C-alpha cells in the first residue's frame, strides 16, 4: 500500500468512526429521553451503548487493532479494563452491601443515648 492510499484509508477510518460514534450517541440520547425502554432496564441499555461507543473510539480513533504490532497495546488495554472493572463493580457491590446492612438511624440514636 503506498503512502497516498494509506492516508486516504485512514481518513476513511476516521470518518466512519465519526459516523458510528454519532449514531451511538444519538441512540443514547434517544433511549434516555423516550419511554421506549423499560425504566429499570435503562442503565443496562445506556451502559451497552456507552461500551459500544468506547469500542468504536478505540478501533477507529485510537487504532487499536488485531495486527501483530498491537499485541502489547491490547494486553495493556486488557489489564486496564480488568482494573477498571474491579474498582467500579467492587465499590458498587461493597457499598450496596454496607448500605443494606446499616443500622436504621433510629437505632443509632438509641445507642448514642
Amino acid at each position, binding site marked *: 500500500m503506498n*503512502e497516498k492510499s494509506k*492516508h486516504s484509508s*485512514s*481518513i476513511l477510518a*476516521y*470518518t466512519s*468512526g*465519526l459516523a458510528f*460514534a*454519532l449514531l451511538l*450517541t444519538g441512540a*443514547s*440520547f434517544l433511549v*434516555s*429521553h423516550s419511554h421506549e425502554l423499560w*425504566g429499570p432496564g*435503562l*442503565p443496562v441499555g*445506556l*451502559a451497552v*451503548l*456507552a461500551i459500544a*461507543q*468506547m469500542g468504536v*473510539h*478505540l478501533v477507529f*480513533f*485510537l487504532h487499536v487493532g488485531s495486527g*501483530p*504490532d498491537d*499485541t*502489547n*497495546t491490547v494486553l*495493556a*488495554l486488557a*489489564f*486496564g479494563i480488568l*482494573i*477498571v472493572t474491579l*474498582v*467500579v463493580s*467492587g*465499590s*458498587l457491590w461493597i*457499598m450496596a452491601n454496607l448500605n443494606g446492612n446499616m443500622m436504621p438511624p433510629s437505632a443509632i440514636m438509641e445507642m448514642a443515648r
Partner: protein
Amino acid sequence: MSATEATAESTGVTNLNVSGGEAGPAPVAIVVSYGFWIFLLSDIIMFSALFATYAVLSGQTDGGPSGRELFDTRNVAIETLCLLFSSYTCGLGSVFLERRSLPAFYVLFGITFVLGAIFLGLEFHEFAGMVARGAGPSRSAFLSAFFALVGLHGAHVSIGLIWLAFMVAQTAAKGPREFVLRRLRCFSLFWHALDIIWVAVMSLVYLMAVRV
C-alpha cells in the same frame, strides 16, 4: 541467542522490536507511543475511582437538588458534539501532517482548539450556574462527587488545549520533523482518550439522571 533477545522473550515483549527480529532496542517512536499508552491507561484507572465514587454517591443529595433538576441535556448534547467533532478534526489534522500538507493541518487543529474551547466554556457556564443557585460542591455528597469527576475531565481538556497550542507553535517553528510528529501522535492519543472518558461521563452522569 543474544542477551537482549533472551530478556525480550522471557518478558513477552518480543514485538516491541518491529525492526524485523534482529536484536537491539526498539525504535523511539514505538517505545514512546507504548509508554504514553500505559500513561493513558493509568489515567483512565484514576478516573474509574472517581466514577465508582460518583456511582455510589449519586443518590445522596442530602435534601438538595438532584441531577434531574440540575442537568440540562441540550447543553450536554452540544458539549458531546463539540468533543466528538474535535476528536475527528484532530485525527484528520494528524493525517494531513503525516502527508506534510501544513495548511490543512493548521486549519484542522485550529478547529479542534475552537471546539475544545467551546466545550470548556459550556462546562464552565454550567458549573457557574450550579454554584450560583446554591448547588456547589459543598452542598451534598452527590455534588462533591459530580464536581470532582466532571471537573477533573474539564481540567484534562484544559491541559489538552494548552498542549495543542504548544504543538501547533512547535510545528510552525521546527517544521514537521520526526520528534514533532511523535509528540503530535501522543497528543492525538490523549485527545481521543479524553473523548472516551467523556462518553462514560455523558452516559453515567447526565443521561442516567434524566429518568431516575
